[in-house]
């Protein structure tokens, strides 16, 4: 934007040619498609192979496996009536893991609800996730909402259920880090549907204006419940939306964990150097239902899902690892079995835990409860007594 304040360079003329040039470059990235390996695990772009040790490469695979195994268990537990709702992660493990892995522990993550892999990378255990999902006494979020994870211990802010309203928060946290002189970077994750919300607009606009050290990872999994991307926007990519805010946008194969890792880690470095925000569009595919309450056969063809399976992130990464001599197919599959039995054990343990106390919802409304809540709590306690006297079961 032609500078005006304290400057008399008036804008009644074309923009300087360097702007068009810069924007043409940004456009190519926003409409491109970065991948390091193809769907058969073959390297297609060396420059996108992160410099990682074999051990680290294997670790990335293990995170993806853990996410997938846990996802399966959450589905199972939901069907058993032990979990209120679950949003399947299957197919999106590469984006979650590839995004979280390059973050430092003190960086902040504002996730959405479909990123088990990211939580695990940042240190959340299966047990904690199951405590949350089943609202045991150890639920770190004390029964406050469903399908949502977060814990300050890992600098993971609990996701909002209202889609996308974490985006300006992430921007604000990043601006705060900058003001305070911290070298923290903030990462926000959300879906293609979230891009339609006002929050996306204001969040990215502020980030552009204030050069906030934040990386937005938009997981374009092709669907927002039953709404396909072409109903979400007429733009040819989501990455191109960044250009509206003077922010670079880059489209990447979200099922290629290495490409996601490389692109996100560059964006994080850029943010850490205080050069500004980036929007990464990770092209992926939601292989499962939207949530356990959803029946996708109402709106999408099985055929599409079958084809999408070919691009599924674990298989291709496994092939890559094998080709690099990091892990054999057998070792890889063994890992899955191992984690499956480990999680089974954890599930058993968590199922034994008691639930949250009855009055838990009176906590954490204010730092100091106002008299209104104190009076209400008294009424609450009396009503429990009355129920007992009457011999009625309130929670049936």
């Amino acid at each position, binding site marked *: 934007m032609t500078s005006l304040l304290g400057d008399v360079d008036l804008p009644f003329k074309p923009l300087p040619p360097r702007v068009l040039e810069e924007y043409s470059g940004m456009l190519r990235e926003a409409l491109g498609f970065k991948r390091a390996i193809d769907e058969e695990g073959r390297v297609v772009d060396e420059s996108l192979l992160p410099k990682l040790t074999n051990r680290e490469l294997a670790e990335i695979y293990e995170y993806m496996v853990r996410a997938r195994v846990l996802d399966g268990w959450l589905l199972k537990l939901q069907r058993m009536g032990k979990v209120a709702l679950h949003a399947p992660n299957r197919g999106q493990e590469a984006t979650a893991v590839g995004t979280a892995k390059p973050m430092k522990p003190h960086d902040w993550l504002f996730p959405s609800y479909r990123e088990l892999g990211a939580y695990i990378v940042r240190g959340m255990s299966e047990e904690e996730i199951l405590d949350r999902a089943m609202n045991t006494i150890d639920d770190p979020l004390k029964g406050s909402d469903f399908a949502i994870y977060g814990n300050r211990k890992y600098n993971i802010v609990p996701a909002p259920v*209202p889609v*996308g309203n974490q985006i300006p928060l992430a921007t604000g946290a990043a601006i705060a880090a900058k003001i305070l002189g911290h070298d923290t970077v903030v990462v926000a994750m959300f879906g293609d549907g979230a891009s339609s919300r*006002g929050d996306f607009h204001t969040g990215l606009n502020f980030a552009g204006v204030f050069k906030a050290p934040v990386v937005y990872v938009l997981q374009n999994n092709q669907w927002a419940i039953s*709404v396909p991307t072409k109903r979400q926007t007429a733009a040819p990519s989501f990455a191109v939306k960044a250009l509206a805010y003077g922010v670079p946008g880059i489209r990447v194969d979200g099922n290629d964990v290495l490409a996601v890792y490389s692109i996100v880690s560059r964006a994080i470095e850029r943010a850490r150097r205080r050069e500004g925000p980036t929007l990464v569009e990770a092209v992926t595919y939601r292989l499962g239902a939207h949530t356990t309450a959803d029946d996708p056969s109402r709106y999408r063809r099985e055929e599409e899902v079958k084809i999408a399976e070919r691009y599924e992130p674990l298989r291709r990464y496994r092939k890559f690892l094998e080709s690099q001599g990091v892990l054999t197919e057998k070792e890889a599959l063994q890992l899955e079995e191992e984690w499956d039995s480990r999680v089974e054990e954890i599930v058993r343990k968590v199922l034994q835990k008691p639930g949250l106390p009855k009055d838990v919802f009176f906590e954490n*409304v204010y730092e100091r409860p106002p008299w209104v809540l104190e009076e209400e709590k008294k*009424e609450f306690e009396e009503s429990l007594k009355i129920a007992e006297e*009457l011999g009625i079961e309130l929670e049936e």
Partner: protein
Amino acid sequence: MPRVNMVQALNMALREEMRRDPRVVVLGEDVGRMGGVFLVTEGLIEEFGEERVIDTPLTEMGIVGVAIGMAMYGLRPVAEIQFIDFIYEAFDQIVNNAAWMRFRSAGMYKVPLVIRGPCCGGIRGGMHHSQSNEAYFIHTPGLYVVMPSRPYDAKGLLKESIRVDDAVIFLEPKSVYRTVREEVPEDDYTIPLGKGRVVREGDDVTLVTWGAMVYVAEKAAELAEKRRGWSVEIIDLRTLFPWDKDLVVSSLEKTGRLVIVHEAWKTLGPGAEISAYIAENHIDLLRGPVKRVASYDTPFPLVHEKLYMPNVARIYRALMEVMEW
């Protein structure tokens, strides 16, 4: 007459109105191909096509804002908010345009718009799939606010809401969606906005409520009758703005005692207005305190929701307090 549940009754209402009036259109997230997450709009896209049953991008501000423009231009849109808890992004549009366009334009433009969506708790939906936020809309001049408790009313009230020439917030207690069935005529009938109904007659105390709480109140009333012999009159308001003060006052003339039960938060919940109105205009009728049983003033919790919302014990306790005063 078919015996249908509330989802089916709402679907009938939409279908009949869309057949009757080509200006009626439906829009929202997943309302088309999918038929809505609760299937209220099921089958409409097949009958009326993509132009009248419109799947939208994910933004309540956009859904409502665009629907207002449609209404001003001459359509009669019914906008679905997938869960009413998500309506807050649309708040500016609702207040400034849906509610006030008629006033702002001195009557030159009107907004015949229905904003409908599932509300209220009872399905273990947590903070954002359980709210009863009707008070925000009742407080806003220019809106009608409606909440049916049963399939028959749902159909008649939705049809009337579509025909009214002002914006209507139409709240559907989702816990009732499939749990109550009754005979619902296939004819064209409507129920006027602003009229409540007596669910259960009684002489000792008037209990005013709406939505899913009607059923909880009935249980509490039966218990109170059985245990203490108290005779509780239950009124289902159905419309929350304007509420049926004549019905409430005439019941109070008989009973002299008032309990209000709602799922909305207690502080400045709709019960506050009803109570304050009586204290202002009919205090002479009161033989004791006016008790409100409401959700506690905390965000809606995922766990223990039945303890958080009004339940039989809480209502019973309120009845005791007014009867034994």
